[in-house]
């Protein structure tokens, strides 16, 4: 069962996702509150954008952690696979910057 038991990886991914979800939700809640009921448009926009960037960074962070955890386990096939996913994500990020 050792081969399929990725409990260390599982915990590492869980941490990244939990932190990402909590941080982005907190920023978005404050930002939404400010934009609905506050008068400070600048602060609201700052919090909203921070929340959205954290939200979109969370899956990327999860892939980064997977690459390093698979490397730690010396599971090279999966190091390669997760690195490809990471490169594909970087590709769309570059596309976004170019189009933006």
């Amino acid at each position, binding site marked *: *069962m050792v081969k*399929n038991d990725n409990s260390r990886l599982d*915990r590492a991914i*869980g941490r990244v996702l939990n932190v990402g979800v909590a941080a982005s939700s907190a920023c978005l809640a404050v930002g939404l509150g400010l934009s609905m009921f506050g008068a400070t448009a600048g602060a609201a926009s700052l919090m909203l954008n921070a929340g*959205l960037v954290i939200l*979109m960074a969370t*899956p990327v962070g*999860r892939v980064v952690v997977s690459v390093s955890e698979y490397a730690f386990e010396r599971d090279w096939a999966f190091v390669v696979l997760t690195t490809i*996913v990471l490169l594909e994500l970087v590709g769309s990020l570059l596309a976004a910057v170019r189009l933006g």
Partner: protein
Amino acid sequence: MPIVTPTLAAIVFGAGAVSGGLGALLGIGGGIFLVPFLNLVLNLPFTAAAAISLTTVIATSSAVSAGRTGKQLINLRLGMLLEVATVAGSLLGGVTAQFLAQSTLQKLFGIVAAVVAIVMVSRIGRRNVILDPSAHPGVLGGRFYDEESGGVVTYRVKRLPVALFASFLAGDVSSLLGIGGGVIKVPALNAWCGVPLRAAAATSAFMIGVTATGGAVIYYGRGQLMPSLAAAAVLGVQVGSWSGLRIGDKASVNWLKLLMAAVLVFMSALMFIHSRA
């Protein structure tokens, strides 16, 4: 772009909650409801609807998967392998769109969704789980505690190329339509690749975040994402996924399959109506 009033934000919050719930139950991001709802009911431009939908899909994926780690339900190895195909598909989504007319695409997906709905109904009462705890799951299979069976169950992954192709297609559709693509992955994994529905849903929910990120950053970079509405939807997801996770592991698999078939019939009808408009 409409002015964001507290009422509009509250409605979008509710729609986000539905998506989060569906994500936890069926492993789909809820985009197939969210995009038409935002576009047709709330009159947002299609790009704005797709952009909000993709951020909602990311939130659903992260929230649902965070709540599930440690339960062995997410098949990490299978998920990461299929992600290679799904992210490649989402990158190529824009290219495919150039060759096919929008109405052709919609009719095509209408047909695919209807066929998959029938396949889903035919799966009722048939399960992929192996009850013998000493059975070996193989390289990509897995084990998890199944409440319905009352013990740890094992499964093996079959027909990997089908799973890879379905994931590629799901990624392709994701950028085009602003959805996560779980609606294609979950039935394919369950009906043809030997993955039990709960594991298929959990693994799909895990993957759709990465699938949607590719499209979401592009919409965000172009300034097509409305931050306050995206925030309302994402916060709704937290509530919906929390509730969905509490029901999901107790709901019967047959009930989940019927719900999935209903979602597919809805999607199919919607696609046909759109292709005529």
